[in-house]
């Protein structure tokens, strides 16, 4: 193979020019149709008979500015809660997933426990779990009961841990048994083969689904407001009650979306890459 630069033939140059023309036409067409659709939607909404009232009660700029600092302060609680809950839920999910894949009668009790856990908390609505933890546990009047933020966070962690456990378990079982056989034949123990051979492959395969769960968790940390602490949603609720206006909720909503964007972007990229890897074959 020569390294010198190949000069395309006139035929190829013609083809390149044609393709470029086609591409420009497609982009223009797509831009035009998007603009038309956007304008139509805009006209439809702003032209609606009730638009003036909706604008007043949902998009009141002075109210938004006034309450933004409080809602942001609340969001800081959501962010901290999210980071702690995500780390704990991943750890919990990993443990439950590994326990569920243990074989042999010796492990029946732990396997059963892990199974009951994942079944229960995938079925139980998160709102109910939060109520049970935040209001039920303090009702026991035990010494050293943690505050509602911790209890609510525990509810979110335990619920998401069960989803993550199932995603990881599916990943673990998708790794072909010959990989474990190869690891064991080299003298690696069960734990070592899990740690170095099976789990890395399982996590890679489960990454898109795992990240989706984490994105979903990111907005569900807002449900902590049900337990009482002042997070972004609770702050919006208070502000809304004070002003008799819904704008604070819109502000909180926009902030939640902005907070989620980076991770959603990462999820998109990881999913695309996983799909490409899959198509490239093994």
């Amino acid at each position, binding site marked *: 193979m020569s390294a010198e630069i190949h000069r395309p033939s006139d035929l190829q140059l013609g083809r390149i020019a044609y393709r470029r023309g086609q591409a420009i036409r497609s982009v223009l067409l797509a831009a035009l149709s998007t603009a038309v659709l956007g304008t139509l939607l805009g006209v439809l909404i702003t032209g609606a008979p009730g638009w003036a009232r909706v604008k007043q009660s949902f998009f009141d700029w002075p109210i938004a500015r006034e309450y933004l600092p409080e809602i942001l302060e609340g969001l800081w609680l959501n962010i901290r809660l999210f980071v702690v809950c995500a780390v704990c839920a991943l750890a919990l999910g990993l443990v439950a997933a590994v326990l569920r894949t243990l074989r042999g009668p010796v492990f029946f009790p732990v396997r059963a426990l892990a199974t009951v856990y994942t079944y229960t908390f995938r079925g139980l609505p998160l709102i109910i779990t939060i109520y049970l933890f935040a209001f039920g546990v303090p009702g026991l009047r035990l010494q050293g009961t943690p505050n509602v933020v911790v209890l609510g966070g525990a509810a979110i962690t335990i619920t998401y841990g069960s989803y993550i456990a199932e995603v990881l378990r599916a990943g673990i079982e998708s790794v072909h048994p010959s990989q474990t056989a*190869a690891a*064991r*034949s080299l003298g*690696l123990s069960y734990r070592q083969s899990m740690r*170095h051979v099976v789990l890395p492959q399982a996590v890679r395969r489960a990454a898109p689904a795992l990240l989706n769960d984490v994105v979903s968790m990111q907005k569900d940390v807002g449900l902590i407001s049900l337990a009482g602490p002042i997070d972004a949603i609770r702050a919006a609720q208070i502000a809304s009650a004070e002003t008799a206006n819904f704008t604070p909720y819109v502000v909180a909503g926009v902030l939640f979306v902005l907070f989620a964007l980076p991770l959603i972007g990462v999820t998109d990229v990881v999913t695309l890459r996983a799909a490409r890897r899959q198509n490239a074959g093994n």
Partner: protein
Amino acid sequence: MLLTCADVRKTFGSAVVLDGLDLSVDEHEVVALIGASGSGKSTLLRCINLLTEVDDGTITLDGEDITNPKINPDVVRRKIGLVFQSYNLFPHMTVLDNITLAPVKVHGKPPAAARELAMEWLNRVGLADKSGSYPDGLSGGQQQRVAIVRALVNSPRLLLLDEVTSALDPELVGEVLTMIRDLKGDGMTMILATHEMGFARQVADRVAFLDNGRVLEQGPPAQVLGDPVEARTRQFLARIIEAGRL
């Protein structure tokens, strides 16, 4: 004797795969296992490596009964290398990491020393430039040589090779055969399951023909392949010749 299988029995449900099999392998000896597809060659190798539990009989390695349930299989496996027909390299690790995993994690070798040893071997089999590649960037023959090196760096007393050439194109078979012949020169004790009679003839000191769960006939390649005593062996070889694999 380095390895002795005595009266080994293995069943899967109602199917009797190994039915009182006896086989001994001396140190530095190379034994080729031949037999029809489904005759239990892979099963026997997996039993020796303790990946599968025998249903009866004993397997002795270095004078130690490794079928004794009190024994730690991980310790036994450190002395036995097994190379699979389908390579089974770890796809998420580079060639170098595939090879150094067991020396570092199982044998406690310092990572630098393990890498050095791995590179020595890769050099020897002409794959030094592939040390940083992932398995899916290698040809079948290259993957198989990496798989063999991965077993070898643990200095096993016994190397089990399960049809290491059957997934390869004829031109790639040569690379792997050369490597195995070199290993024989080093004095490595090997049991190789194979469908390639030419391969068995070239590298084996002894050929064992598996039939109905036992070793029906064994001896020097020239005798077993050229002038078999048993009618079943002759039938098997006739079918192989028909398929053009002799």
